[in-house]
């Protein structure tokens, strides 16, 4: 069997004895970032996409990263997925430094990027195939997920036969098929119309409530950021920094009506204040 880097790390730490294992479990952050910076070389010199960013994310927490373009929110998401290396700083995943992508992460992008030559079911199964998971079990789980997102009966359809919202539902199933504990979402609803976007937001919260995961969700929509999140991380550009972290103390399940409460407006003001003052 091929071990992923994360499994190797886990094996190594558990070898260290009970102390290390206990340290893992007791109130450990799911993801922790310390003093992280990322600079890119560009034609006009060096661009600082992220400047000294630190944050700790708890297991099963729903965190949204919000900010204008160029604030580094997507870069931060990619760093968390270990898809890009930070220039400085460390990323901890389950308490251990993470240097390579881990299979314990599922990713959803702004575009569904489904494989046009695969049916809905086969698209959902792609990660399971790559990871070499049990075929029968994966199929059953894929069907469960497809039903969960309301696409039951569409499993044999091809992406070109689906609307944008349906395609994005499929890509959410694909991100969840290997049952990762972390879900990274990079403006997943930004390309959809406003109504589909709202629908999918509530659907995502329903999925999350049924099967708790740590969700890190990038958006430039402040209302969406507040409605979904346990915590909103407001970021500002040039250089990309965390300007404020707002705890969202609204009860779950969330409803549209909450958007019109004074509390919601106060959260919104707190986020707007830092974003527009930068």
């Amino acid at each position, binding site marked *: 069997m091929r071990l992923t880097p994360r499994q190797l790390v886990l094996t190594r730490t558990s070898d260290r004895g009970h102390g290390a294992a206990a340290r893992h479990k007791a109130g450990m952050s799911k993801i922790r970032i310390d003093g992280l910076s990322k600079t890119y070389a560009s034609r006009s010199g060096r661009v600082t996409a992220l400047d000294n960013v630190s944050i700790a994310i708890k297991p099963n927490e729903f965190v949204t990263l919000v900010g204008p373009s160029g604030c580094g929110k997507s870069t931060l998401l990619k760093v968390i*997925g270990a898809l890009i290396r930070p220039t400085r700083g460390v990323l901890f995943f389950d308490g251990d430094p993470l240097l*390579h992508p881990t299979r314990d992460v599922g990713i959803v992008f702004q575009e569904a990027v489904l494989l*046009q030559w695969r049916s809905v079911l086969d698209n959902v199964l792609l990660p399971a195939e790559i990871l070499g998971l049990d075929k029968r079990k994966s199929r059953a789980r894929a069907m469960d997920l497809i039903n969960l997102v309301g696409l039951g009966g*569409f499993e044999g359809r091809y992406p070109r036969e689906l609307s944008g919202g349906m395609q994005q539902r499929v890509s959410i199933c694909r991100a969840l098929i290997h049952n990762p504990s972390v879900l990274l979402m*990079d403006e997943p609803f930004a390309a959809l119309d406003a109504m589909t976007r709202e629908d999918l937001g509530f659907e995502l919260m329903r999925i999350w409530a049924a099967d708790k995961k740590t969700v890190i969700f990038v958006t430039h929509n402040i209302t969406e950021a507040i409605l979904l999140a346990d915590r909103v991380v407001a970021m500002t550009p040039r250089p990309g920094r965390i300007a404020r972290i707002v705890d969202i103390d609204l009860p779950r399940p969330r409803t549209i009506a909450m958007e019109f409460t004074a509390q919601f407006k106060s959260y919104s003001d707190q986020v707007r204040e830092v974003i527009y003052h930068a």
Partner: protein
Amino acid sequence: MTNDAATAILDQNEESLEPADSTLRSVLGSMLTLIALIVLWEALVRHFQIPGWLLPSPSAIAESMLEWRSELVLHTAVTLYETLVGFALSIAVSIPLAVAVVYSPILQNTIYPILLALQSTPKVAIAPLLALWIGFGAAPKIIVVFLVCFFPIVVATASGLAAVPAPLIDLIRSLSASPMQTFIKIRFPTAMPHIFVGLKIAITFAVIGAVIGEFVGSENGLGYLILVSTSQSRTPLAFGALVLLTVMSIVLYYAIALIERIVVPWAPRN
């Protein structure tokens, strides 16, 4: 109405009804135009009494094609053979080469730029040299066909393999997919529609390549037949050979298009 039924109706409207209807109309329209042009041609040749060795009438061409049918079949077979063998050879060499170029930074920086520069060499200009080196058999024609097909397929394949959307690359990287998995499951299928674009360009070039090869030095083939019959003022026969070349070109193109529909049904259609 259920969602399912609504989508099914949508599909019908978008996929079967409209294009089928408009395809039929455009096929019918172009056929009628073609017939009208042939009739006009016939009428003009008769009215102005243009001599047959200068511009034969469609009926004279048809007559001569009937008369020479066994020769025409033979020469068509020769040209078709050269075209198909050269084309197949080109596929067999250029697709693996494109894969190698995309996967090897060394090849990408050494061979590929030279290939792209050589692309501007008029390949048909090499035909006389090939005749000089290899003689008058089928081989030099096959090589010309190979050369003219080579570049469109290499370029299309290489660009197709590189056309995987960036988020998809991130997705498979996050799953630590092996290069082989990435190639088989993502890159090659992504490249397929691009490859077929290259193949469709190449197949039309292929027929031209075979004819040029035959012009330069040959004892058979439709190119040879055109050359010989014009020199003997058998212009209707030259036109007959031209008709067959055109038909061959069209049939080969649509054969590739048909294979494309079967192999890559997801490819965008124009």
